[in-house]
C-alpha cells in the first residue's frame, strides 16, 4: 500500500499490489459499523450552543464562529497558525535575503486575459478580503477567509512573472510570522494584565481580536501564496534544490 510510493505519471489508477477485495471488505465493514453507531444512538441534544449564546456578549464579537475561533478556543487557532508556519518553513528555500522583497522582473509577453484579470479581479479580491476581515466580527467571514482571498489576489498578480515577491527576504519573513508574533504577544501580555493566558479584558476585546485577525490575515495570505509559488515557479529554488544536489 505504502511500500512503494508511485510517482509514475502514466501509472494505473489503482495500485496493482494492493488487494482490492480485502480493502473493500475492510472499508465496507468499517462503514457499516460507523452507520450503525450513528443510527442507533441519539446525539447530545444541544452541544455547546447554549453556552456559546450565553457568553457571546462577553466575547467582544457577535458572530459566534469568530467568537469560538478567536476568543473561546483561541489557543487552538494560535497553534493552527503555527501549523501553517511549519509548512512554509519546510517549503521555503534556505536563505536569500539580499534580493529585495518586491521587485519588477523584465517585461514578459503581454497576455490580454491575464492583464485584464490582474487589473480588475485582483483589486476587487483585495477589497473583498478587507471587507470579510472587517465583517467577520458580526457576520460570516474572518481571518482565514480573508487571508485565502488575499493569497488568491497575490497569486493572480504575480502569475505573469512581471512582478515577483522574494519570500525569503527579511520583510517577507517578518510578514510570515507577524500573525503568530502578535497572537503570542497579546496572549502573554494578557497574563500580565488580566492574570490568565488569552483572557481579553471586556472593554478592549473586540479591538484586540481585530488586531490579531488583521495580522493573521497578512501571515496567512503570504503563507498560502508562498506555498503556491513554491510549486508553480520553476525558478523557485526549493523545488529545484533536489535537482542541483543530484547533479553536483
Amino acid at each position, binding site marked *: 500500500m505504502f511500500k512503494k510510493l508511485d510517482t509514475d*505519471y502514466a501509472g494505473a*489508477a*489503482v495500485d496493482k499490489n494492493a488487494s482490492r477485495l480485502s480493502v473493500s471488505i475492510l472499508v465496507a465493514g468499517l462503514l457499516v459499523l460507523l452507520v450503525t453507531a450513528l443510527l442507533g444512538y441519539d446525539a447530545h441534544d444541544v452541544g455547546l450552543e447554549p453556552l456559546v449564546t450565553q457568553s457571546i456578549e462577553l466575547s467582544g464579537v457577535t458572530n459566534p464562529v469568530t467568537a469560538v475561533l478567536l476568543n473561546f478556543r483561541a489557543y487552538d487557532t494560535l497553534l493552527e497558525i503555527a501549523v501553517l508556519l511549519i509548512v512554509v518553513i519546510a517549503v521555503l528555500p534556505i536563505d536569500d535575503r539580499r534580493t529585495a522583497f518586491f521587485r519588477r522582473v523584465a517585461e514578459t509577453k503581454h497576455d490580454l486575459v491575464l492583464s485584464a484579470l490582474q487589473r480588475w479581479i485582483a483589486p476587487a479580491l483585495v477589497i473583498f478580503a478587507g471587507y470579510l476581515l472587517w465583517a467577520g466580527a458580526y457576520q*460570516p467571514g474572518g481571518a482565514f477567509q480573508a487571508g*485565502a*482571498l488575499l493569497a*488568491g489576489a497575490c497569486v493572480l498578480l504575480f502569475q505573469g512573472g512581471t512582478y515577483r515577491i522574494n519570500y525569503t527576504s527579511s520583510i517577507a519573513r517578518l510578514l510570515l510570522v507577524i500573525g503568530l508574533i502578535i497572537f503570542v504577544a497579546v496572549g502573554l501580555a494578557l497574563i500580565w494584565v488580566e492574570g490568565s493566558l488569552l483572557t481579553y479584558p471586556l472593554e478592549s476585546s473586540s479591538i484586540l481580536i481585530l488586531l490579531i485577525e488583521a495580522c493573521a490575515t497578512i501571515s496567512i495570505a503570504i503563507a498560502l501564496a508562498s506555498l*503556491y509559488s513554491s510549486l508553480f515557479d520553476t525558478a523557485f529554488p526549493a523545488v529545484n534544490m533536489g535537482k542541483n544536489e543530484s547533479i553536483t
Partner: protein
Amino acid sequence: MSLTMVFDALLILSMLTLGWMSIFSVSLFRCIVFFVCLGLLATIAWGQLGAFDVAIAEAAIGAGITGALLLAAWNQIRPLVAKDSDMVETNQSVAQEHV
C-alpha cells in the same frame, strides 16, 4: 418528502460520485478537476446546512487554494512531450525559456 430533501439527496449523490471520481478517474488532470468540483458542491452543501463561515472558507481555501496547488503540482509532474526521443531537447528548450 419535501423539495429540499430531494435537493439534498441529489447534492449528496453527486458529491459521493465526485468523491469517487476525484480519486479513480483515468487521468490525473480529471481527478483534480473533479476534486475542485467536489469543493464547489461542498460549498453549496455547507450553505444548505447553515454553515456560511465554513462555506466561504471552503470556496476560498478548500476549492480555490487547494485546487491551485494541485494544478501547479500537476503542471510540474506531467510529461512535457509524449515522444521519448524528443524529450531531452524539449526539456532543454523549456529550461532556457525559464532562465
